């Protein structure tokens, strides 16, 4: 019997052992009886793009940041004509979202407002973006300057002689608030430019698609992108370090862990020079998060700087290519020439009347695209890395003060509870008395660790509630890669529970091979040549693995996702946006990946 709807969120059972999971998240983030009537009518899908895994209570802040900011900028500030915000609910530890449409009757009036407001930004884009960079980088420097140390027995003399006028305990309370509200503010800035930027990009995209129905997304992005943006700088630095290793005659070995290698290298002059170069480069260019998919979403994924084996493997790969006489530099000039050639030729094929608006739209798309690419480095990588690093610093201080048994415990507390813990800790320190401290939190953390593990084992439904007749909200299609047909496939999968996974063909080709499920950068070492990489999504920081695998299958992403783009470059098949490959497939199973048809077929069990 084909089903025509996904289960109601109110019918989803709590996994065994996860009873009480609701206490891990803010009450306003949950499905609740008060708005059941509304929420049961809505179509929710699991946001595996930003949050593929169970959320730690503390990491919920990541969702909150964009929940509010995206909403306010779409709904209240720019009056995005068709779309309000994107609503969120947490269910069994996973994030579900639903785009909220603007009332159809309001679209025309909103369009008029949007024209004035977004128009103001489009006209001044470059100047506004220059200011934007300054304010974000200033805030980044501010966050990095925060210090969360265990509170001193006696304040340093400077507190007195420099008339600081506050206590270290107060400053811990204040700085934590500043840390949290800074991320809120950062997300205001994130959406100050992002969605109006996407709107301009989508417009050029749509124009190309209607003039040239056969055009690929990749071709459109080649007409727009290709600029020398900062997002590519980390990779460029890896290449530079590879060339430096060659110039200095430094042997990077093959498998030696980074720490051991660096210790050996520093014994020679050239080796020491190279290691010093690496260390200078690592901040800021290796402050690159390694989350599969959207960077910065969880506190558990290290940066390159924290996991240097990952960038080191990439440098070794570049050295190998250099030794083979290959060119490794991104041919920026060629890319730009090619971009202008392609755009020029498509322009010539447009109707003559369309050419002026094609030119103008392309120019605007190119302008906004710099932001669309670069903001990922500034916010998703640098700001979040700074936030998680400072949060971990705080967690170490609280553990050292006896407020927690161990630092990681802090991430099992909601951010409001962390503020409470800080106050409890600070007041005990201030008075010279005793905090309730770890004794209070211990049973809570213990329970939540158990719940967390039970939630991890739960396979989330890809979607909840009644599916829309058509998925045509432009941002949903563009960002999440969710279309009418993906939703249809999810429904079918519900019926079949079958041996074929469907997604979007991200890169053509057919191969068979053994599955290797990877959900964390630390597992990349286990990948064998010829494996089919199955992952929530890939990250640019996973670069070294692509020369070893035979195909890639991802849970999220569309044809423009990192996975699809990289696989096309390597000429290997990719199926992206399958929804649930990670939870359905197991390492060792043989599959056939058809990157043209967008299917993954289970061949046998091992």
């Amino acid at each position, binding site marked *: 019997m084909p089903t025509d709807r996904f289960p109601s969120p109110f019918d989803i059972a709590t996994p065994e052992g996860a009873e009480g999971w609701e206490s891990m998240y803010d009450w306003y983030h949950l499905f609740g009886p008060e708005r059941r009537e509304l929420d049961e009518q809505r179509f929710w899908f699991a946001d595996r793009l930003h949050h593929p895994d169970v959320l730690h209570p503390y990491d919920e802040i990541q969702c909150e940041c964009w929940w509010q900011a995206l909403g306010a900028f779409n709904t209240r500030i720019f009056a995005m*004509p068709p779309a309000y915000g994107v609503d969120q609910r947490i269910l069994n530890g996973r994030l579900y979202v639903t785009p909220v449409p603007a009332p159809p009757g309001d679209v025309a009036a909103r369009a008029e407002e949007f024209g004035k407001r977004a128009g103001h930004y489009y006209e001044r884009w470059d100047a506004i973006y220059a200011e934007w960079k300054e304010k974000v980088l200033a805030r980044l420097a501010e966050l990095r300057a925060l210090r969360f140390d265990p509170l001193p027995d006696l304040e340093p003399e400077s507190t007195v002689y420099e008339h600081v006028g506050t206590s270290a305990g107060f400053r811990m309370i204040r700085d934590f608030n500043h840390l949290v509200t800074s991320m809120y503010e950062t997300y205001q800035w994130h959406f100050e430019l992002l969605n109006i930027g996407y709107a301009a990009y989508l417009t050029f995209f749509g124009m190309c698609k*209607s003039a*040239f129905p056969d055009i690929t997304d990749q071709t459109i992005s080649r007409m727009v992108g290709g600029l020398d943006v900062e997002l590519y700088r980390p990779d460029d630095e890896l290449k530079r370090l590879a060339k430096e290793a060659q110039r200095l005659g430094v042997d990077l070995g093959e498998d030696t862990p980074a720490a051991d290698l660096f210790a050996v290298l520093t014994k020679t002059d050239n080796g020491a020079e190279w290691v010093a170069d690496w260390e200078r480069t690592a901040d800021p260019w290796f402050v690159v998060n390694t989350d599969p998919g959207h960077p910065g979403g969880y506190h558990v994924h290290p940066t390159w700087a924290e996991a240097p084996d990952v960038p080191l493997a990439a440098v070794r790969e570049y050295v190998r290519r250099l030794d083979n006489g290959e060119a490794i530099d991104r041919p920026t000039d060629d890319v730009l020439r090619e971009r202008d050639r392609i755009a020029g030729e498509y322009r010539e094929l447009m109707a003559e009347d369309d050419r002026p608006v094609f030119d*103008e739209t392309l120019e605007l798309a190119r302008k906004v695209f710099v932001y669309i690419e670069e903001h990922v480095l500034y916010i998703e990588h640098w700001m979040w890395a700074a936030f998680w690093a400072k949060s971990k610093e705080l967690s170490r201080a609280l553990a050292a003060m006896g407020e927690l048994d161990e630092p990681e415990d802090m991430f099992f507390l909601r951010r409001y509870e962390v503020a409470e813990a800080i106050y409890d800790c600070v007041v005990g320190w201030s008075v010279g008395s005793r905090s309730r401290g770890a004794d209070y939190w211990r049973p809570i953390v213990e329970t939540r660790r158990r719940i967390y593990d039970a939630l991890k084992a739960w396979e989330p439904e890809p979607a909840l509630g009644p599916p829309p007749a058509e998925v045509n909200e432009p941002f949903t299609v563009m960002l999440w890669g969710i279309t009418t047909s993906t939703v249809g496939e999810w429904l079918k999968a519900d019926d079949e529970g079958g041996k074929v996974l469907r997604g979007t063909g991200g890169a053509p080709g057919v191969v068979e091979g053994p599955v290797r499920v990877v959900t964390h950068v630390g597992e990349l070492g286990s990948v064998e040549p010829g494996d089919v990489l199955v992952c929530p999504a890939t990250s640019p920081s996973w670069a070294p693995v692509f020369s070893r695998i035979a195909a890639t299958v991802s849970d999220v992403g569309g044809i423009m996702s990192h996975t699809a783009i990289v696989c096309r470059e390597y000429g290997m098949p990719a199926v992206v946006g399958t929804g649930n490959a990670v939870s359905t497939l197991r390492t060792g199973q043989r599959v056939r990946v058809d990157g043209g048809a967008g299917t993954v077929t289970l061949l046998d069990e091992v």
Partner: protein
Amino acid sequence: MSGPWVVALGDPAAAEVGLVGGKGAGLHRLVALGARVPAGFVVTTAAFAAAVAAPEEIEAPLRALPADAPVAAVEEAAAQARAALTDAIRSAAARGDVPVLDAVRAAYRELADSAGPGGQRGAGSGAAGGGAGLGTAGDPAVAVRSSAAAEDAADASYAGEHDSYLDVVGPDAVADAVVACWASLYTARAVAYRRGRPAGPMAVVVQRMVAARAAGVFMTLNPANGDRATFVCEAVWGLGEPLVSGAVTPDRFALNKISGEVVRREIAHKPTRLGRAGTEPVPDAERDLPCLTDDELAELLRIGRAVETAAGAPQDGEFAVDDDGVHLLQARPETVWSQRPRTVARGRTALEAVLATLTGGDRDAD
């Protein structure tokens, strides 16, 4: 109609549609572009006028038909008109009174003497040789095709409405084929296609046959959706006629014009091909192979784009491939998508376009 009776395809006079017909002028354009076109000449409309003394009389039986005449009556009247035309010329020829056909024979001789690339020598046997007007072993095989003045114009293709004769060898056979082409002005389907318009004077194109290893048709846009950045072609082993007439399933290719990439490739099972001796089996090993190589596709794309750019409009055409490469047999303006409005932009500024995208205004066109 005045003017020369015979002009070479490369002759500047062959640019004039009124003189050489649509197909002839189209081929001249291709030659002038430097495309590889089989050598040949046009028997002009002036030649037709000189040879067919009184076309009004010939058409008389057709003009006598009522507008709603039954098909059989049209067939019969057309047959009468054809007979009148061929009889008139035959009896004049018997009197030695058709210098136009002598000019055709002479032009054929000249073509035989020129060493054109891609030419195919006649298979004519020695037994047929000897007589001045008969084929000799060294005579080239030619294709003789009608080229009506209205044919291949941008607004109507007239595709296949008039006759073509392939693999014609020897001066007399060529002269006969030219007369047969003239007579094909009065086939029932050509008459029906003209819908009452009088038959214009007809030119006839005579070209060397290409020893086609493969042949086919191309279009410089995607006929399925009008995408002008897509180039499509269909091809079969051997000569292209079975493909044009729809008798066989061809290989299908789609190329992106801008990247040159072959974006779609559907290889058909091709058990037979049309060779010089008629339909013949394709060797087993080749039946499921693509009949064009990537190099040939690239050359075809280059030629097609050059023709399209020069013409300033999408084109469709026919081609054949031999050991020398791709030969262009014909190109003409595409007639379906070219006449549709194709403006896609809503609004005249980028901001207006953004607003149209966000309010769904751009979806009205779908």
